[in-house]
């Protein structure tokens, strides 16, 4: 059912509302199979409203997608932004920017109908220095043979595909010899191992690739241009981190504990007020940045990233102090896969906030260099072939 069937001249807002209501009327979520509902949503151009017609959109402003999700969520329909976060928010924009017509057709529909993707960039030797990845992809049989080790992969076990960055030409400088693939995780040679962390959970995985064959049709973007593709993926990640962090709410938790336990300790009172203030200002900033950006994430998201990382750490530290002696205890170190809201677990978890998705140090570099225009540090590795670099 095309957009053309709708009555009269309407504002984009009105069109989006009307289309969504019609989708919900034609396919009542309670009575419709999930995949069928999602396919109908895609065909109605309501998966990514800013995409062109035929690619899950109707070519209106990206911001209007928010309204679609509001209506869908309150009607009990699936919300891909939450359920397939990486595929929806990071995979799809990269496919749109770099994919062939065939790939857009294939991947966007797959994502729109529920396929989940994970990210296969980081490696043990390539953290902050992401371009130092060592996973090798060698041409073979109209495709690529890939071997290497990836790490810090979220949701690997529940995903069908992975956004993979691999080195295709070690003789070029490190940023230049990389290529981006969309890896089928069921391919032979893919092994996923849970990676246990400080909290006891295994929220991430290590992914071992041993002679995995990838058809060339699953290469996204030109050969040796993977760095640029990966950058467009990452810009969307950083933006997402900002959003995600606003939801995690140590401030609310601390307020609840404060009201329950703080008594009249003036030091705790003033820490509580200060924590609230920090959260308040970061939320104001994030809202302002979202309005300003009109959807396109920029280096400003690094401000939120740094701010929320520090807020979370300070917030859960305050929670711990509010817990008194109970801060000595823990709920369970057994990997439970659960979403425990135990403040002690969240306290431990928050230590990673200044590391994951770009360390605070790297964020500060980005702000200084891209926003303030300060010069990069002298680079010893920039123009040398990757194969000649010192690593470790």
């Amino acid at each position, binding site marked *: 059912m095309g957009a053309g069937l709708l009555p009269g001249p309407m504002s984009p807002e009105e069109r989006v509302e009307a289309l969504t209501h019609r989708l919900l009327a034609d396919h009542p979520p309670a009575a419709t199979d999930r995949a069928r509902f999602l396919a109908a949503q895609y065909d109605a151009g309501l998966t990514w409203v800013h995409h062109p017609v035929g690619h899950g959109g109707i070519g209106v402003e990206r911001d209007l997608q928010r309204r679609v999700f509001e209506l869908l969520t309150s009607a009990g329909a699936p919300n891909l932004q939450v359920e397939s976060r990486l595929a929806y928010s990071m995979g799809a924009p990269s496919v749109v920017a770099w994919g062939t017509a065939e790939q857009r057709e294939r991947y966007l529909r797959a994502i729109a109908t529920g396929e989940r993707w994970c990210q296969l960039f980081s490696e043990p030797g390539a953290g902050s220095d992401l371009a130092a990845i060592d996973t090798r992809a060698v041409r073979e049989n109209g495709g690529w043979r890939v071997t290497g080790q990836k790490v810090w992969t979220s949701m690997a076990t529940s995903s069908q595909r992975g956004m993979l960055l691999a080195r295709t030409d070690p003789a070029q400088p490190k940023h230049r010899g990389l290529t981006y693939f969309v890896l089928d995780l069921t391919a032979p040679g893919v092994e996923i191992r849970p990676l246990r962390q400080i909290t006891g959970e295994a929220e991430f995985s290590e992914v071992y690739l041993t002679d995995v064959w990838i058809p060339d049709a699953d290469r996204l973007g030109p050969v040796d241009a993977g760095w640029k593709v990966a950058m467009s993926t990452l810009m969307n990640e950083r933006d997402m981190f900002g959003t995600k962090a606003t939801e995690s709410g140590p401030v609310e938790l601390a*307020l609840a504990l*404060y009201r329950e336990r*703080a008594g009249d300790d003036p030091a705790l*009172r*003033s820490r*509580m*007020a*200060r924590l*609230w*203030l920090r959260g*308040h*200002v*970061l939320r*104001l*900033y994030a809202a*302002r940045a979202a*309005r*300003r950006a009109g959807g396109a994430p920029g280096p*400003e998201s690094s*401000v939120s990233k*740094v*701010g929320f990382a520090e807020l979370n750490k300070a917030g859960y530290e305050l929670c711990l102090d509010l817990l008194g002696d109970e801060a000595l205890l823990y709920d369970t170190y057994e990997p439970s896969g659960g979403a425990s809201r135990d403040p002690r677990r969240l306290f431990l978890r928050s230590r990673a906030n200044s590391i994951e998705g770009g360390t605070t*140090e790297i*964020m*500060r*570099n980005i*702000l*200084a*260099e891209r*926003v*303030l*225009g*300060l*010069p*990069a*540090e*002298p680079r010893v590795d920039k123009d040398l072939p990757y194969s000649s670099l010192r690593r470790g």
Partner: protein
Amino acid sequence: MDEPAELRDLRSTLRRMLAKSAPESVVRQHLESADGFDRATWQRLATEIGVHGLAIAEEYGGAGCGLRELVVVGEEFGRTLCPGPFLSTVLLSATLVARSEDRIAMRAVLPGIADGTLVCTVALPGHGSGWDAAETTVTAAPDGEAWRLTGTIPHVLDGLAADLLLVPARHDDLVSVFTVTPDARSTSVEPVLAMDQTRRFARVGLASAPATLVGRPGAAHELVAEATTIAAVGLAADQVGGARRMLEVTTEYALTRYQFGRPIGSFQAVKHALADMLIGTELARAALDDAVRAVDEGAPDLATAVSAAKVVCSETYYDVAAAAIQLHGGLGFTWEHGAHLYFKRATADRILLGSPAHHTERLAAALGL
């Protein structure tokens, strides 16, 4: 900058004008002058752009805009350290008189403020934590239709330059606001040296000084609270403007100052310090914008939004100005370089209209902690 066009125009007009009327050389001329500013220049800002009357109603000679416009002025003045009684006259006095709804007082005061001919100040009983009118030690005694005030106010901003003083004073069981026109017989005004060289304070003594009541008897608490709340947002704008300037100046220095054969801005220690200055000013501006919104909408979260902005902008300006000195090295510590003027202003701005500790306390109370 994603500012609406009309604000952007105001900003660029003002910036051009200030580049001529308040370049650093002029700011420096006034560091040691008695009033701290030049009346003729001050009036020109009023007549040529109408800066002082932006938020004053049209019937009193103003432009009838909101705080949104005035905040642009606050930022640009803060950016240049523009000499003039902006805080005392335009922010505090005009707001207090306008809020009094006393039409006689409004006619007497507002047009003069709007056209730049009247310098006016509020003789607040305290700054960092005591500007509650109830803390005044000045007393008022009736004198026929008029009043006479007696008492001392230790640190009156622009007290020497002021043509008119707005003084909270106690009478019966009430505290009301009065106007006093300083005269040699009943008013003593002794300048006291301020750390912030761009500001002037005076110790004002009133000995049975003739005075006129402004607004309702007993309205001082409310009027002073409203005026200081609005003025705090203007002061937060001064802080954001100053912090932005220090960020720009320091960034520029980091790009052009070479040590160890490369710009110091290429060292991570400098880079990260500047990134923190950037983060601070970005967050401060978000807090400022929100306070402006709350005032202009008369929102229920007004007090919280203003206190939040005052805390964040105070601490940011102070930290940014301190970092500017540090990153300039010895140069930042000299009299010759401008950084110290901003640092001193940041130190004063932090205290004026309520210290961070004071506003944090208000936030805690508002949160019910």
